[in-house]
């Protein structure tokens, strides 16, 4: 990665942090849902570059997210984001073998895992919360997938995934 690219992605990262902080919740099927721009940024990094970058950026990004949103539970996002970075970065090893649909499906699986861990930590342990949690995991994963598809389609001309 050259200096220009590093600079570019650093600026994008700052923009992502600011936008993520300002982004409001939207109500989907009676539940508040927020787009995870950090996850999308991480996905782009993981797909464009290598697994190691995705892990390290994911970890530091998660730490920033922890500090800015939930300092009482430091480490949760750092763990989730570095794990997701590792999983998403793994797609590069199979880029020649898997077709586009399978790659999308894999990314969707990674999102499901990311949001499952997230909601597992945040929701209380009862049956009602579990049902809501499943719904939220699916909604968050689908919304993020949709935005990823837009980014892939209109920014990267379907060359990202």
């Amino acid at each position, binding site marked *: 990665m050259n200096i220009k690219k590093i600079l570019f992605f650093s600026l994008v990262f700052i923009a992502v942090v600011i936008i993520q902080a300002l982004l409001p919740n939207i109500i989907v099927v009676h539940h508040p849902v927020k787009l995870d721009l950090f996850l999308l940024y991480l996905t782009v990094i993981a797909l464009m570059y290598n697994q*190691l970058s995705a892990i390290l950026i994911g970890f530091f990004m998660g730490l920033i997210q922890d500090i800015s949103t939930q300092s009482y539970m430091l480490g949760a996002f750092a763990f989730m984001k570095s794990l997701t970075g590792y999983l998403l970065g793994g797609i590069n090893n199979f880029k020649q073998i898997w077709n586009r649909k399978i790659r999308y499906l894999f990314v969707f699986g990674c999102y499901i895992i990311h949001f499952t861990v997230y909601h597992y930590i945040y929701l209380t342990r009862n049956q009602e919360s579990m049902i809501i949690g499943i719904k939220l995991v699916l909604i968050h994963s689908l919304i993020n997938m949709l935005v990823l598809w837009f980014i892939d389609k209109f920014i990267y001309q379907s060359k990202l995934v």
Partner: protein
Amino acid sequence: MLILKKIYNYKEIVAIITTSFLSLILFFNAQSPRVSAVKADIADIVTFISTPKTWYQDLLTVRKENQILKESLVQMQLLNARLFHHKNENIALKGMLQFSEQSPLSLKPCAVVDLELTSSIQSIIVDVGSNDFILKELGVLDMKGLIGKIISVGNNASFVQLISDKNYRVSIRVGEERTLGIFLPTHGKFGILEGIQESIHIEPGDIAYTSGISDIYPMDIPVARVLTTLNNSESGFQEVSVEIIADIYNLNYVFIIQ
């Protein structure tokens, strides 16, 4: 260098392990109810996974405890047996004390330390001697009747010739007329009464008591119970077979008449 090269080859794995480790340390050190809930869930999983190990450890512990309990059980059984023995001894001693207090005779209680029924002289050894002012030729009895007499005295022990010894003789009175006779042992607990004339009326079940003629025995100590009587017209005396009243085969404590 080789290690660094290997680490470099697996840099992604090292990175994910390191970042996961760091983030989980940060996470589990946080003081939050949600972190506590996650910790509880992990503890549940660990407990479930370690169930076979716990079960095996419990099994070993149970085996060890079982062995200790078995040893304790044996010790308690021995203690219980001792207590039972002491209880029975206590009952016997209480009976003896009562007998000793009710008896008009001056009695010295003593324990039987040895019993010799097969030698030339059927005898017992008691745990009192000259230190307890025991003299030769003193009568010995148990709670039922006459046992024998002292034939030898040591400092702390004495020999008692038993009533069942073949050389033992004792003067008795028997029947309603208190007829004089001589008790002679024959075999085991049995004996005969000599010198009872045919004209004297004696019934089975009558008790022969010491006559009091001898210097050794005071009068009216139960000696034997009449079993059968048979008139012998040739000699003019009855053949009276008797059974010794004293429990000579089960002697624990006896009394010496002082």
